[in-house]
């Protein structure tokens, strides 16, 4: 695998070398951004890829009350980092991704990408929705080319790049299939390829594997880790599965239940590639789970107290 900047799309997808270095093959970034696999403390001062500066979000419920969904969240994500966000359901973790994607405006605070504030959607940040949002009227190939089409990428290059990403997610044979003809795991991979094909710097993933069976999910974990290693993207991954977060992330962020705040941060210094069943993954997940459980209990107690008052 080449570590030098390269513009062309290699015909073959490197698959054998899982332990390989993180080469930014497709972006033409300098070779200095190449880092060895285990997550590393970066000494020099880098502009964070994504920064949240005192983000709050509140909205009116149907009964007319104002509900504070996100409360004063500040957060920095380094370029090339794999950040996982966990929390009880309803803690606003999906909302946070929508804010970073620029699909919803926040009530106060700033979302910064590469140091400049975000004012709307941009193809430098692609969100993979929990329900995927693949377009049923397009073929798999059409879905993957969609983002490039919107960016007016010429047809020939579009097709070449689509081919490349199809191969990357092992779906070359399904280029002309429609979405409903695919299994859940395959759809998931189409969504991944569609997002990657627009070549975003930041990949936002909203519980993408929640609806899959364990085997498919494990397989996609491996693939995602490999893709991340090969493309050097920054990934922010939201899940309610702590073990999944530890298996994938360089760092795991724990959020509180309504209002959503950052409760605690865990650095995961485990060597890659990892597996769900690994003992150290399980142990780290256990630590985080203990913290999360107290959070869930607190939120439940708060709810019961509310009911007694009301």
């Amino acid at each position, binding site marked *: 695998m080449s570590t030098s900047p390269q513009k062309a799309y290699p015909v073959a997808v490197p698959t054998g070398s899982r332990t390989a270095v993180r080469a930014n093959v497709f972006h033409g970034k300098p070779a200095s951004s190449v880092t060895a696999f285990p997550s590393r403390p970066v000494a020099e001062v880098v502009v964070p890829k994504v920064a949240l500066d005192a983000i709050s979000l509140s909205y009116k419920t149907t009964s007319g009350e104002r509900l504070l969904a996100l409360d004063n969240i500040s957060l920095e994500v380094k370029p090339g980092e794999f950040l996982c966000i966990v929390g009880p359901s309803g803690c606003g973790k999906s909302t946070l991704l929508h804010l970073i*994607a620029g699909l919803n405006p926040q009530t106060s605070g700033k979302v910064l990408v590469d140091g400049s504030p975000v004012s709307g*959607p*941009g193809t430098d940040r692609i969100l993979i929705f929990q329900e995927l*949002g693949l377009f049923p009227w397009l073929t798999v190939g059409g879905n993957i080319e969609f*983002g490039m089409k*919107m960016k007016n990428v010429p047809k020939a290059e579009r097709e070449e790049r689509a081919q490349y990403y199809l191969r990357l997610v092992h779906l070359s044979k399904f280029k002309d299939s429609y*979405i409903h003809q695919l299994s859940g795991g395959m759809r998931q991979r189409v969504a991944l390829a569609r997002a990657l094909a627009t070549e975003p710097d930041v990949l936002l993933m909203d519980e993408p594997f929640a609806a899959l069976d364990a085997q498919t999910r494990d397989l996609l974990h491996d693939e995602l880790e490999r893709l991340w290693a090969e493309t050097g993207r920054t990934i922010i991954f939201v899940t309610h599965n702590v073990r999944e977060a530890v298996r994938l992330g360089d760092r795991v962020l724990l959020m509180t239940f309504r209002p959503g705040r950052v409760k605690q941060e865990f650095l995961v210094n485990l060597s890659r590639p990892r597996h769900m069943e690994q003992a150290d993954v399980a142990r780290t997940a256990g630590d985080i789970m203990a913290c999360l459980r107290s959070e869930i209990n607190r939120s439940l107690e708060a709810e019961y107290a509310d009911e007694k008052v009301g």
Partner: protein
Amino acid sequence: MKKLAKQIIFYSALLGVWALLAKLRIWPPYLFPPPWGVGHALWDGFADHSFWIGIAVTMKRMLIGYSLSVVLGMILGLAVSSNKFLEDTLGGLLVSLQSLPSICWIPLAVLWFGLTEKAILFVVLMGSLLSVTIAMEDGRKQMPKIYGMAGRNLGATGFRLFWSVLLPASLPFIVNGMKQGWAFAWRSLIQAEMIFLSLGLGQLLMMGRDLSDMSQVLAVMILIVILGYMVDGLIFRTMERRLQEKYGLTPA
């Protein structure tokens, strides 16, 4: 195959009962003609070309009036669904106007346009325009929000977002609206034709009445049912089924 067999048995039984009742002569034949009498009327109608002309005239009006109402209905529906002010004002008016049977537009059409082709087309237009508009508006509202978000997320904006995402995403609803519009247009047209001397199927029906020719009345009614069903069942249902398959929706 099993369904077809059931249908054959059902229609044979229906014809059998009809023939039997006619044979028993409970009612005089000029009020209750036998199936072969109606068959004869159908044969004669086609043989002297009057049914062919009736079908051609009616279908031509259908095509013009219906096309007009689909185009206008889509524009109106889009306008109403994308503007809150129009939705609250014009939207409500359209829904309330839909309670007006399309035959009620005939007096107005006759006074405005006289006993002309324009009057008939106007009635057809008013009969189906509202249902196309409302179906279009509903479609825009029912369309899953995720597609619009995904489109914006992937860099689609403005007209391209509409053309490449919102329009295809609402296509199943649009086809549904077109289907409803067709059904309304068909009813309105036959009604309007019954009022005017107009050469269409509706007039053939009235001619049967004027001549006290029950066989012709029934023959034209059968013709109207078959034509209406053919367009609805063959064209629109096929379109709907194809779309549902492609979009992965389970047929209702």
